[in-house]
């Protein structure tokens, strides 16, 4: 058996140090755990209780946005009861958290890494970009970033700070190219000067985007991975609620993911 000290480190209380509204319904939550927790890596997620009472009952899964000196950040959008309550938290509030959970993006040290984010998919993708930029010997990653509008393009300053200039596409054309980010990526990959065997793709975003991306990477024979999202109760692989179809059968997003090879996901 492992020691108690290790055993308890995935279940902790964290104090809210900041809960900032970025735009409309998008927020950036900074948490500082009240004890030492396991090292976070891009792709990992946390289960967070937004309320200590019984309604809402379950913890909510949130992907790691980035690690900070005293903790970590979560980038989220208000979509329902849980995130509405979360958006009202103020500095000093204490939340129950489990994590870090799940697997990580298997970054290829020899490849040029292409990151693809759709909407709030930038949450884990920014953390991945940050980690690649800060890994000695890795080439600067390319970022393809799609959003609904120019206003919803997040992390602009943080990306500039790590010298990443994203290729942007928006649905309404208010920033970058008008249209679909996967189409923009396809054009880039087919531009002729590229040897697809030297590239790996890491993505997070809405299902239609990931589905299109998976069709593209399968067609071109590029290795790709995507972080998936699914409702879950436990986050640790026991409720079996968060399964997705893969070529290897039904798999739990929480335990066998959230990052899956794009060519294994059955859409």
């Amino acid at each position, binding site marked *: 058996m492992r020691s108690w000290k290790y055993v308890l480190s995935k279940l902790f209380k964290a104090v809210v140090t900041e809960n900032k509204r970025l735009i409309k319904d998008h927020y950036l939550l900074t948490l500082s755990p009240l004890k030492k927790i396991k090292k976070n890596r891009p792709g990992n997620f946390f289960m967070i209780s937004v309320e200590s009472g019984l309604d809402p009952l379950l*913890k909510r899964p949130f992907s790691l946005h980035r690690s900070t000196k005293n903790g970590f950040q979560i980038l989220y959008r208000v979509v329902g009861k849980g995130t509405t309550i979360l958006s009202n938290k103020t500095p000093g509030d204490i939340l129950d958290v489990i994590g870090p959970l799940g697997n990580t993006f298997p970054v290829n040290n020899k490849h040029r890494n292409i990151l693809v984010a759709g909407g709030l998919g930038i949450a884990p993708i920014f953390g991945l970009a940050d980690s690649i930029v800060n890994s000695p010997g890795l080439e600067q990653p390319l970022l393809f970033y799609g959003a609904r509008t120019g206003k919803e393009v997040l992390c602009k300053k943080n990306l500039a700070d790590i010298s990443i200039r994203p290729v942007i596409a928006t649905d309404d054309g208010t920033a970058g190219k008008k249209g679909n980010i996967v189409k923009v990526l396809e054009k880039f990959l087919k531009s002729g000067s590229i040897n697809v065997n030297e590239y790996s793709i890491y993505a997070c975003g809405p299902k239609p985007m990931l589905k299109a991306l998976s069709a593209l990477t399968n067609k071109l024979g590029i290795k790709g991975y995507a972080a998936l999202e699914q*409702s879950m*109760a436990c986050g*640790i*692989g*026991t*409720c079996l609620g968060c399964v997705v179809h893969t070529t290897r059968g039904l798999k739990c997003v929480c*335990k066998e993911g959230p990052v899956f090879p794009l060519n294994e996901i059955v859409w």
Partner: protein
Amino acid sequence: MKKKTITLKVNIGKLKLKNPVMTASGTFGYGREYAEFFDISRLGAVVVKGLSLKPRQGNQPPRIVETASGMLNSIGLQNIGIDSFIENELPFLKKVKVPVIVNFFGDSIPEYAEAAAKLGATKGIHALEMNISCPNKQAGWSIFGTDPRVTSKVIMAVRKATSLPLIVKLSPNVTDIGLMAKTAEDAGADAISAINTLTGMAIDIRSRKPKLANIIGGLSGPAIKPVALKMVWECYKSVKIPIIGMGGITTAEDAIEFMLAGASAVAVGTGNFINPAITMEILEGITSFMEEEGISSLKQLKGEAH
């Protein structure tokens, strides 16, 4: 207050437990995941995810929906199968030295009996919990848990197949749970688990479709606690065999209520999802309550509200 020696020991038939707090099947996997959060050997027993002779894939996603103070699930009895459990999971539980109660089910009376015989012949299993009441199976299966004649037949067949302590997990989706408990007792059950989930559903008003792919699911969590408590109360009135109470327990107070209604032991289910170490908090809370009340044995609580 004068200091008394407190014992948390309970007997479920021949099964002797060091304390009354166990896990509800389907919420604790095969124990491994929770060992990262607390010393699972401190549990009264681990009740593992329901097993069948062959592995099962379960239902299509989406499989869970949160509801007010509860959740619906339609996992559909996904499991690794008895053989894989014995080979890959049981050795871990044996090493931890925690009593293991294996929840199991079959598609027919002979399958139930075969599964029980196989599990009964395996070293390191302390008791069997027979699932006759999962709401997540195709039509027709619920007959094992709702038609007293069939319930009696399937329990008798299992009883013949194994000498391990036999716990029968009852469905709340019946008219008279007291009758079902009595049926189980008469057919040879050593104990009753009450209750399994209540059937329910949720609808997405935008898509106008049920939220679960399976349409209906089993409701669990604090939302069902008053219903579960009343059903344990009724079982206690109709049988002499021990009752393991469950249904929405998240605190020591909840657990004590179930004991006062007649439960000898309790199982925690959905609570494990909210706080992976919740069973330890409940265990400590029961001990504190006994100290405060000057109670030395759980016998002083069992059925005391009647």
